[in-house]
């Protein structure tokens, strides 16, 4: 069993979809969430506020520096994510395909590192 991050990517500044499209998206994502919860694959998931709401905090020497805005100045930002438990990458890719359809955006799949041995 491997834990995967499924990160949803949004292009900042892109036109907001029509209301009925958004409503359908919510419905599809909700159905997907319920399904993976029932299947025991769900660990956590949720949508995020836009990246310009973000704050970066960085410990530097003895100081902690706080700056406004997201860390990478990229056009593509994470708009939401799931953390899921899957048997292998094939299962995670299949889930990500359905997640991408539900939220109508590309989904990046990344495995978590194994926990270091105690």
């Amino acid at each position, binding site marked *: 069993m*491997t834990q995967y991050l499924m990160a949803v990517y949004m292009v900042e500044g892109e036109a907001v979809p029509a209301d009925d499209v958004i409503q359908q998206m919510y419905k599809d994502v909700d159905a997907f969430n319920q399904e993976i919860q029932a299947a025991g694959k769900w660990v956590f998931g949720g949508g995020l506020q836009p990246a310009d709401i973000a704050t970066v905090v960085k410990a530097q020497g003895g100081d902690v520096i706080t700056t406004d805005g997201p860390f990478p100045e990229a056009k593509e930002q994470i708009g939401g994510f799931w953390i899921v438990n*899957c*048997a*292998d*990458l*094939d299962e995670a*890719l299949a889930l990500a395909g359905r997640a991408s359809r539900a939220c109508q955006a590309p989904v990046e*799949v990344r*495995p978590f*590192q194994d926990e270091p*041995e105690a």
Partner: protein
Amino acid sequence: MDIAAIFRAESGRSVATLVRLFGSIDIAEEAVQDAFAVALERWPADGLPPNPGAWITTTARNRAIDRLRRESSRHDRHAQAALLSAASEKYESEPIEPVGPVSDDRLRLIFTCCHPALAPEAQIALTLRLLGGLQTPEIARAFLVQEATMAARLTRAKKKIAAANIPYRVPGDAELPDRLKPVLAVVYLIFNEGYTASSGDDLIREDLCGEAIRLARLLARLMPDEPEVLGLLALLLLTESRRAVRTAVDGSLVLLPDQDRTRWDGELIAEGQTLVRACLRRNQPGPYQIQAAINAVHSDSPTAADTDWGQILALYDQLLAVSPTPVVALNRAVALAEVKGPAVALAAVDDLDLGAYHLFHSIRADLLTRLGCHADAATAYDAALALASNAAERSFLEGCAVAARQRAS
């Protein structure tokens, strides 16, 4: 005794089995390398074991177990013990004969190597390394990249397989059609690498062609209802049937029209043509089936003059429709020259953006020769020579360039 050659032929099977036993490509590769070192030491004195493949697998397995025991430190001894006992159990309970094609470890391994989560160039490199038993420098030469670049590519791909938990299994029915495409592409490229090694003095590396055909046969047994698998096997068999006469005694290249057709391998041709007919009955054409059909037309002609170029051109039109690439268009131009003449073919070739491909220049040169433009032909042969790295192809092109220059003066 050519121990290196025996190892290359057998190592894929051993690596694949050890990956299943130990769940790690790195452990499997290292263990098979260890077994190679033992063979180099013992075989010359003790003689070849009765079943070298089984000897390599058993020796590699024992070496892997020794290494894991030696390297296991106190805190992970428990985990290592579990891994070892699981590996031993799997090994001891193994049937002597594989139960069916699905149980072939190499097939599992090729689907892992050709997983779509890996970049295509990594898929080919991994398959050549793990199943074809090629060393990293040879693969680097085949892809015209630096050895360090290829080593990094292989390391990164193996790391991703482990970290992302890419499964070691043959995909289920639903995923199979999509997952098959990269596998077929990889097998085809391995065959091509064997048929015309991209550099070096051996035009043909039989073991690579043999390995590709073996993999294609295995795929055909597993997926008898997949027409493109049969098409690929037919294409490889029909191409292979001409191998013996593709080079002369002195190692120089003999082109299709000049080959002694009585020495083509009749058995391979019959098998290939039977497969092509089976594909035609299914009527689900794809790129491999069409290329096989083109080769079947050549195989059908007792002499070069009897070749049904009209049918070949029609098949190329069909091929260009399903895979519209410049290389297909270039090959189609060869048939076009036979049907409509070299001027029409040259016009079609000149439209193609293939300046970096040596065959583009050599086909242009041939068409220019037929049109009597010998000075231009000599220049085109020079351009081909500057790009070709295979010794047999180079000496063929050098001869053509000299002849063109003589005619021009």
